[in-house]
């Protein structure tokens, strides 16, 4: 009997937790991540952009033209939203705008006195259903979309998440989160177990609460949140590996971030509210930066931290949200007031403050975001080129004359020549990425966690070392999917305000990821910016969730987003 017992014991020892990890978890984690991101991506990138019809324009010939946005350029140009191919009609003739209360206005933008409502010449006027709109003598009548029609339309449109059950994706994510927790528990000291259980428990609960909360208000597009939750999970595990005590702070930051996400999301449902918030936000941005300038404390070379009652905080992160509000604009404003002077001034102020704070990474993010907004608003590459040249020159001067900038750039592209010096972080990062292979050395088993700021600046290498290169790549792809989704959604955007805001938000996220990841692997100088959702950092986490709200607001798939009002009659039947 005894030999058999011993054999069994030996067998069990062979099957130690570590062995299980080696063979199962190592593969399971990236595979689950791939599934979660793939399912979300498929849903976000392959949906058919089906327009919403908000009203009809009936021509004298009886032809019905659908009005598919809240803001519509009417003109002869092919890129007009309502194309009237008549020689008398201007290229950009008028803008037809739907107000939040469901009424419409018409504005003459390029026709100089060729817009009439019920026979009366107007520059800007409300347009009621049944009114006759006359553009350069071409008559048309605005017709209402009836309640029945709206319902039919909503039912005909494909519901968000159809064919890619978001619930199933979330279940996969939950399994991923549980295995991540298990993996951390196995490799870290036992004293930290309660922290892991609590942190991941809360994270899972928050995810499902968000999911069911949206179910309650009949929203089914959960892919964007799933991706954010996935990235947050990776970030939380990174924090858990490096400094388990910091997980609590990170969770609180995520909680605040979620509140910001929901508040901004709901505020974006109506344009009027968004417009009101706009000025407040712009002012708040200025205030935040001024507070930062006065009370700022230097940390890691940049003076972008303030300390408040024991908490450290980076105001510039929240300024990103303010900046988007300041930059986004409705079509009517864009077409009538081409001037962006105020916004350029605002950008100059923000950039100037950041340079004074010595935070060049964040300044670069704002600059890219500015370029995106400026191009979306003006469509003018020449102007953008001039701005680029100007800032490029300023950048050159900065590099030429500011010694700390020179130092930061000195190792760029030469890290292997100064591996113990200026290239220390990146060479260690590459060594550890290689050590991790495709499947990683196991959560908590990394070495990079002993390098300062590795959980923020070197996050790509951190993840590659502990989870493997596949996971690190999935992390990047997941974020890129959000960016691609925004562009895909732009076609069926309701207002340019949402499209511009979403593009701006995604460009901030992409730029952060580009600077962060490319800095780690020496494609770019290391600037110390965070990777959205993943890098350890409270302010960064809050900002990332805030940015996500703008992306939710451009998701016009049927019943997709809590930040988008269901069209008049309550949307599709459940």
């Amino acid at each position, binding site marked *: 009997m005894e030999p058999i017992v011993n054999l069994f014991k030996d067998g069990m020892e062979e099957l130690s937790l570590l062995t299980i990890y080696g063979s199962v978890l190592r593969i399971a984690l990236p595979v689950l991540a791939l599934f979660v991101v793939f399912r979300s991506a498929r849903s976000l990138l392959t949906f058919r952009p089906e327009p919403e019809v908000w009203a009809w324009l009936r021509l004298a010939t009886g032809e019905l033209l659908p009005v598919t946005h809240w803001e519509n350029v009417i003109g002869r140009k092919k890129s007009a939203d309502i194309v009237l191919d008549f020689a008398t009609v201007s290229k950009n003739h008028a803008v037809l705008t739907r107000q939040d209360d469901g009424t419409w206005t018409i504005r003459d933008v390029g026709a100089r006195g060729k817009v009439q409502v019920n026979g009366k010449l107007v520059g800007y006027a409300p347009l009621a259903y049944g009114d006759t709109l006359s553009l350069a003598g071409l008559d048309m009548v605005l017709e209402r979309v009836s309640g029945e029609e709206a319902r039919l339309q909503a039912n005909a449109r494909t519901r968000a998440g159809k064919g890619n059950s978001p619930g199933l994706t979330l279940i996969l994510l939950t399994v991923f989160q549980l295995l991540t927790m298990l993996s951390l528990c196995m490799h870290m000291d036992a004293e930290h177990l309660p922290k892991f259980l609590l942190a991941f428990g809360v994270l899972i609960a928050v995810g499902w609460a968000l999911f069911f909360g949206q179910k309650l208000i009949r929203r089914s597009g959960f892919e964007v949140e799933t991706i954010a939750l996935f990235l947050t999970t990776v970030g939380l595990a990174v924090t858990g590996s490096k400094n388990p005590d910091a997980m609590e702070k990170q969770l609180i930051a995520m909680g605040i971030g979620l509140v910001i996400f929901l508040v901004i999301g709901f505020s974006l449902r109506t344009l009027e509210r968004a417009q009101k918030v706009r000025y407040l936000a712009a002012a708040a941005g200025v205030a935040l930066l001024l507070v930062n300038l006065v009370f700022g404390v230097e940390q890691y070379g940049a003076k972008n931290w303030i300390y408040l009652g024991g908490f450290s905080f980076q105001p510039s992160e929240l300024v990103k949200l303010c900046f988007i509000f300041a930059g986004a604009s409705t079509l009517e404003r864009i077409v009538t007031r081409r001037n962006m002077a105020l916004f350029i001034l605002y950008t100059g102020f923000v950039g100037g403050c950041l340079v004074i704070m010595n935070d060049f990474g964040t300044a670069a993010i704002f600059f890219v975001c500015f370029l995106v907004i400026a191009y*979306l608003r003006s469509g003018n590459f020449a102007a953008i080129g001039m701005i680029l040249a100007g800032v490029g020159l300023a950048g050159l001067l900065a590099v030429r004359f500011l010694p700390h900038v020179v130092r930061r750039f000195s190792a760029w592209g030469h890290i292997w020549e100064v591996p113990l010096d200026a290239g220390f972080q990146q060479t260690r990062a590459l*060594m550890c990425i290689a050590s991790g292979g495709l499947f990683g050395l196991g959560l908590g088993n990394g070495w990079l966690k002993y390098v300062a700021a590795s959980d923020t600046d070197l996050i790509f290498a951190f993840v590659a070392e502990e989870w493997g290169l596949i996971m690190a790549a999935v992390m990047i792809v997941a974020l890129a999917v959000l960016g691609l989704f925004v562009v895909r959604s732009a076609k069926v955007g309701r207002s340019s305000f949402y499209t511009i805001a979403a593009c701006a938000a995604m460009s901030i996220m992409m730029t952060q990821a580009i600077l962060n990841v490319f800095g780690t692997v020496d494609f770019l100088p290391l600037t110390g910016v965070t990777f959205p959702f993943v890098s350890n950092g409270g302010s960064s986490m809050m900002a990332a969730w805030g940015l996500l709200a703008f992306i939710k607001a451009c998701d016009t798939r049927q019943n997709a987003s809590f930040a988008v009002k269901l069209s008049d009659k309550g949307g599709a039947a459940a």
Partner: protein
Amino acid sequence: MKSIASRSYFAMALSCILLFGLLTFLVRYALYADRWVTFSGSPHVYTREGTLDTGVVKDRSGNTILSTAHGKTYADNALTRSATLHLLGDREGNIPGLVVRTYAQLLVGFDKLNGTSAMEEGGGELDLTISAPVQTIALQALDGRKGTVGVYNYKTGEILCAVSAPTFDPDNVPDIAGDETGQYDGAYVYRFFHTTYTPGSIFKLVTACAALENLPDMESWSFTCTGSTVINGETITCPRAHGELSFREALARSCNCAFGELSCTLGKRTMESVAGRIGVESSLSVDGLRTVPGQFDLSGAGDNDLAWAGIGQYTDLVNPCQYLTYMGAIAAGGAGAQPYLVSRAKCGTTVKYTAEAKQGPRLLSEDAAVALQQMMAYNVETIYGKDYFPDLTICAKSGTAEVGSDSNTATFAGFILDERYPLAFIVVVEEGGAGSSTCAPIAGAVLKGCVNVLDGE
């Protein structure tokens, strides 16, 4: 709205840049990850002290001569430690353990799929072709003199012995920086690979090869040595007048006058081309160790210089390892195997690398090789005596290179002409006096050790 939507593709560029960057990085990973992971200081691979954090190094008989996990642990006895030090490197990094470093990637079991996770399953093992007992025999035979002894199998390429002296016990490091006796001068240099020597008369084998290949009818060639000959107004001398000599006798008696004349007859261009083909000035790569190239530079040389160059003096320099391959080539009929040090690298139970015998380039014609074999065998029979090499067919040539007013480098190079023991050897003793009397006993002891090792396999 439509125009805004089309402008939004501009923002899409950012996502594309991010994805493209990722792709570029993945390609770089596929190309360079092995370099990154074994770069010095790589945290999962090296200890804080900079030594590889895994694996053992064994000699050809399976004796562990180095264990690198958690710092370096050398062999048990001081003599073996000293004799193998230059191969393995010291703890301080003054002597780089280049062989281990070259195979570090395999030792840590790195592969691009699994990274370094194989390290947890047991470290690597590097099997050398070196025989630790032979190394100690060679070091003992050098008996405190500076120099190097090398032996390799010219059929397979395995290096059995590559000792360098002076050396020291890495577990008991002497005060080298503060040493004033000079006994540790150049102790960090791996002489077998990283030094060049004035070859002296062993270089006559190069001149002889050139003569055999380029001059007709060397069998009937003869020369009368009067003890000195004047070439271009300057004198070439022999220790004594050798009288009338055949080609074979001229080599056996190492007649400077004869080889000086031969060298001049052959001319600069022929001598340079033969020396170049033999590889005197080339660098060999042996498992991460690159030999220092020798020198055979006749630019600006007068006839007298040319004569001295053909005798292995003038500015001639040879690297011991490289010259050893010339011996191997003669023994193997013109082209020997390329030398190597590492026979196998394992990680855990997986064999990651197995050496294969590789034919080296042809250094001389088969006819010349056979002729040289016979002449070198004759040298041993008639001049050096077979006392040190009982029961072996030894072919050799000695040299006494003048490197200063009263300082000679003793050199001795050759091979065993025997299917069972296809070994070529070279012995260099600095300030060693006369070539054969200093080096032949060393070569004899080392070859006997090698034969024993081969017999035991």
